[in-house]
């Protein structure tokens, strides 16, 4: 069983992401949640998840700064964004900082299946 960390400042969106993970066939995995980038950073270090799915815009610390801090510390946990913003500029920034993918909201279970295939 793998561990997936879902980071989003919206409780509603965390629930939707968790529900979508189940629909995409990841029901058996251990899912933990973080409320912002700082919380995501702390829980990545404490819980050592196998995959991080993170929002971009969050209070305290945003997702891209969290990813940059993880990579700067040598942490290579697979990281994907789930964000309302899917512009080319954001995708390029995500990729150059070390994200594996960017899923734009709104999304479907099929989008999750497509991006998560082979990762866990």
């Amino acid at each position, binding site marked *: 069983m793998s561990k997936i960390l879902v980071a989003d400042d919206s409780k*509603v969106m965390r629930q939707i992401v968790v529900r979508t993970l189940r629909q995409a066939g990841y029901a058996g995995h251990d899912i933990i949640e973080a409320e912002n980038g700082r919380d995501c950073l702390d829980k990545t270090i404490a819980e050592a998840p196998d995959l991080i799915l993170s929002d971009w815009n969050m209070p305290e610390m945003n997702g891209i700064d969290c990813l940059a801090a993880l990579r700067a510390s040598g942490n290579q946990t697979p990281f994907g964004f789930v964000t309302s*913003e899917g*512009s080319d*500029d954001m995708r390029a920034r995500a990729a150059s900082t070390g994200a594996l993918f960017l899923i*734009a*909201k*709104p999304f479907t279970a099929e989008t999750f299946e497509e991006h998560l295939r082979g990762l866990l």
Partner: protein
Amino acid sequence: MTVTQTGPALADVQAITEQVWSSFLGDEEPLLQRFDAPSAFPAEQAWSAAVSVHGGWTGSITVELSVAVAQALTHLMLATDDEPIEDADIADAVGELVNMVGGNVKSLMPGPSALTLPVVAAGRAAHATDLTEVARFDAVWGGEPVRVSVHAPRA
């Protein structure tokens, strides 16, 4: 998609709203465009939320919903049925709705730019006088009003 200098086309705002709506709220109850909406949002009690974009394009995106719509969409997004919901849950759901619509509008406009976190209020939306409405999508959902509007600085 069509983009003008001042803001996104109404057709794009409508397409984005419908996509967000059907993805998270399902197609069981369709969101129907309304052509005869008055200028003031037609609900006695409403929830509203806004995000702003600053950068290559500057503007704000606002969602207004009747209380009945706000409550129903919160139940659907949380996948709860008849359990009571808190105002904090409604604020969260309505904020996430405008975040998704606003993020997608931002992606259509010239960048790079930054998107603010949503600001949510129980009540109709108010707009600064230095902003002008560039697109407005009025709809009804289950007979209740829904409005998405885009404002940009006056030229």
